[in-house]
């Protein structure tokens, strides 16, 4: 190892091309970005007008047209239910008005979706930027 190599160099940002039948798209006026080719960290979020998740043939969309819209917000839930080590894997897309996050939570396995709300303060670090 080169002595100048940082000991905690981050890994390359991951792409959803790892998965079958699952991806997100980020629509801007000039381009639609696909999470299979670009990581969400590299999206020009200030230009995004629509966020869509496609999971197992199910598509869910969030746009910025609501009067209280302030920002898109997205994250994923990980973890395990240790009843035989069943993974928790949920893709969450939504928007926030700076007080509440209005989320669509999509099960990775089958694309089923539940709508949930969370206090923005708990999740604000996940803001796309």
């Amino acid at each position, binding site marked *: 190892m080169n002595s100048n190599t940082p000991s905690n160099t981050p890994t390359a940002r991951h*792409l959803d091309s790892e998965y079958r039948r699952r991806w997100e798209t980020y629509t801007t006026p000039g381009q639609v970005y696909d999470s299979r080719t670009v990581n969400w960290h590299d999206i020009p979020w200030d230009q995004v007008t629509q966020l869509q998740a496609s999971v197992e043939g199910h598509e869910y969309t969030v746009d910025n047209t609501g009067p209280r819209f302030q920002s898109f917000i997205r994250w994923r839930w*990980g973890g395990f239910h*240790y009843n035989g080590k069943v993974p928790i894997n949920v893709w969450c897309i939504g928007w926030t008005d700076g007080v509440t996050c209005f989320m669509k939570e999509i099960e990775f396995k089958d694309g089923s979706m539940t709508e949930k709300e969370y206090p923005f303060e*708990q*999740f604000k670090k996940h803001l796309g930027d």
Partner: protein
Amino acid sequence: MAAPTVRFRTFPITVSVAELDTAGERLAAIAGQSVISTGAGNELDFGTVDISGGAANSLVKMLVWDITADGGNTLVEDFLFWLSSNGFDQAGTVVKFQPISGDDQGTPSNTENYIVNAVVGSYTWATLDESEPGAQNVYPSDEGSSMVLSTAADDVIMVALYVVVADNETTGTYKGTDAGNEFQYSFKYSYS
């Protein structure tokens, strides 16, 4: 985005305070540690609790969670831990938990500093939720809501646990998915 790679460990409660008072020490191998929860036969074992004389408690066990590979993510937060299923027949049989910080957390409020050879009377404890908590209930030592990922996490989450076994609880071995004798928990976090 791949999910981060996580691990659970346990370590003896005889480990000294000084061996756990920096994030670097907590992330590195802890003396006597073992990796747990990779599958059946690898569980965190609370041992045998004798209730022949009435309700009794298990020994205190330590649980450590951290991330060893970031999967291309930069942040984890909103840590939720709960007892997701149990086969106990008595309402009084519960799991008690205490979020733990290293001694480098000088003013703990959501956690308590680690104590060597902890017993039931060592920490304040709370009863572990048996459904998903509505908000974060376990913490890194700085008691923040998140941890930065750069290859790995910048700290671990530590929890002390013990089981209160109620008088007249149905005897048997409680573990995993054993029908009627389940003993299983869930851990959930958000990442991006």
